[in-house]
């Protein structure tokens, strides 16, 4: 009882948007599709919706070929990054549009409209036109239109990215609540933000250049990213990567910075590695490595420092507001117990730090 996607390819001219996607998706729950811009997220969603025909590959639900069903009979909902509503219709007419198309009775339409208006708090806006609404309200209307109908799956293409910070947090929490109570449908949620993926929970699929890099439970993917690509996509800011080696019972990064081999690297053979450390695991202070502050950002309640080290650049993220001037010299502590180790050639994960 699953959606089965097999070897899906989409090309346009010389560009490859999807390159052999093979996946099994559950019939209900939330699946987060993550990847950078142009990774193929939107194309994958469009194929699922029936808006884009793949060049090759199959899409089945319980053995039923979904590709043969056109978008208007596939029973899907879709919410775009841009707020797409029907400009010539009022909010009420927008929301009931799919119900009218499906030929529901006036009673059923009124009942469903009432339910979804309450769910998304649109009661007072029903008579307005989309152009008279704020961005957040417009996206709510789009969401209401996709939730009001009886769908097998719901596709959301970066639905929060065009909203401001506060609205994004608010709507994100609402979405999680709606999806949890949402019943028997599969929600496919595309985003570039790892935090959103973590909040949505469930399965995560990492896309990169039209290929699946890794798929699995979001906590597992976070704890054990399959390779450096997965590690950089699924952490924000991207995971810091530095070249180093394990030799003679020591771990070395850069030139002359060494330490004992941490416990979780004990079984690794000696040789060259790429070590990864999350920005949130980099610490300030001590008699550590000297670094120069290249850029300091304060985002809400966190501080992000972009640092220049003798052996490369690094990003540090810490809770709280800590002003630093550009050009400041700071000392860094890189705890080896938090290191990931990737194979220097294949860039695949060979060891990850233990879960606390």
């Amino acid at each position, binding site marked *: 009882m699953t959606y089965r996607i097999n070897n899906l390819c989409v090309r346009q001219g010389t560009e490859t948007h999807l390159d052999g996607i093979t996946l099994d998706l559950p019939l209900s729950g939330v699946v987060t599709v993550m990847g950078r811009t142009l990774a193929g997220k939107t194309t994958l969603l469009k194929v699922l919706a029936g808006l884009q025909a793949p060049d090759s590959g199959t899409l089945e639900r319980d053995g039923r070929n979904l590709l043969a069903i056109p*978008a208007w009979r596939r029973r899907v909902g879709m919410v775009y990054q841009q707020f797409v509503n029907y400009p010539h219709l009022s909010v009420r007419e927008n929301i009931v549009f799919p119900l009218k198309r499906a030929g529901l009775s006036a009673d059923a339409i009124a009942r469903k409209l009432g339910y979804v208006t309450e769910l998304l708090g649109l009661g007072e806006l029903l008579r307005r036109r989309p152009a008279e609404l704020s961005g957040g309200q417009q996206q709510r209307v789009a969401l209401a239109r996709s939730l009001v109908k009886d769908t097998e799956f719901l596709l959301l293409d970066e639905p929060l990215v065009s909203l401001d910070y506060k609205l994004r947090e608010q709507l994100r929490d609402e979405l999680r609540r709606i999806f949890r109570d949402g019943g028997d449908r599969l929600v496919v949620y595309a985003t570039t933000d790892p935090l959103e993926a973590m909040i949505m929970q469930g399965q995560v699929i990492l896309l990169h250049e039209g290929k699946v890099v890794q798929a699995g439970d979001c906590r597992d993917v976070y704890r054990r990213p399959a390779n450096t690509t997965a590690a950089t996509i699924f952490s924000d800011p991207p995971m810091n990567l530095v070249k180093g080696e394990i030799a003679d019972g020591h771990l070395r990064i850069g030139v002359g910075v060494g330490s004992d081999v941490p416990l979780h690297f004990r079984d690794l053979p000696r040789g060259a590695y790429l070590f990864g450390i999350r920005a949130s695991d980099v610490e300030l202070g001590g008699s550590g490595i000297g670094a120069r502050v290249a850029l300091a950002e304060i985002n809400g309640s966190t501080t992000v420092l972009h640092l220049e080290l003798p052996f490369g650049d690094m990003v540090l993220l810490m809770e709280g507001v800590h002003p630093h001037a550009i050009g400041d010299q700071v000392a860094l502590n890189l705890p080896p117990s938090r290191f990931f180790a990737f194979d220097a050639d294949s860039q695949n994960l060979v060891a990850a730090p233990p879960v606390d």
Partner: protein
Amino acid sequence: MRAFYLLLKVAAILVWSAFVIAPFLWALTTSFKTANGVTGGPTYIPWVDYQPSLAAWQGLFGSGAGSIDIVGPFISSVMVTLSASLVSLVLGTLAAYGLSRFSYKAGPVGNSDLTFFFVSQRIMPPVVLAIPFFLMLGWLGLLDTVLGLIIVYVALLLPIAVWVMVDFFNTIPKELDETAMIDGCTPIEAFWRVILPNAVPGLVVAGIFCIIFGWNDFFFAFTLTFTQTQLLPVAIVSLNSSVTPWWSLSASALISVTPLIVVAFLVERYLDKGSIGGRK
């Protein structure tokens, strides 16, 4: 300083208005003059400067010597212009939607080439088209008929409709069509129920262009008709004889321009109501 700019603005508007309105007033006074009134030097105020006469106007609806019947050509012109504009608008809108939303490929020929092909019909001078049109209408037995003129005018107006509507459809995001299909519309229903209602401002602009170009055409109305069918611009010019009858020319020019003024006022009222919201 502010008052000075305001003064400057008002002055500019007044000058421009005079520039636009004066020819109409001139034509209006001239149309109420007799031959002597026109040639006897400049006069402006009726009953004071000159004695107004309805002779010119009567000449346009009469059957006496030196007069023509303008009603027939007027009706023919309305029929040809409206029919051709309507057909062009319908065909042009459908063609433009296709060109805006789907990609066509035949060897090296793609969408932009097709769009250009439509528009290119208006690039060459009309004379080039006169002989082919004449021959084709001759074969079809449609020379000197209203139907023949409608067909030719569709050929002339269709590029305008396509051009305006392709531009307009390109401003409507494709996601709107996609959303409509996801909400249960077939592609044709998506066009009809969602895209078309949101394209009304474009339809109005394209329609106006079609009506203006169709109404004002003289060349094809002149070359493709002889005695049975006559359109307004040709009828007006045919007033000309050895003496230019300025008075009846003025009266007929005013008649000719009236429908366009009516259209302009209707459209202005419509645009006022808020074309941004689409359908009312």
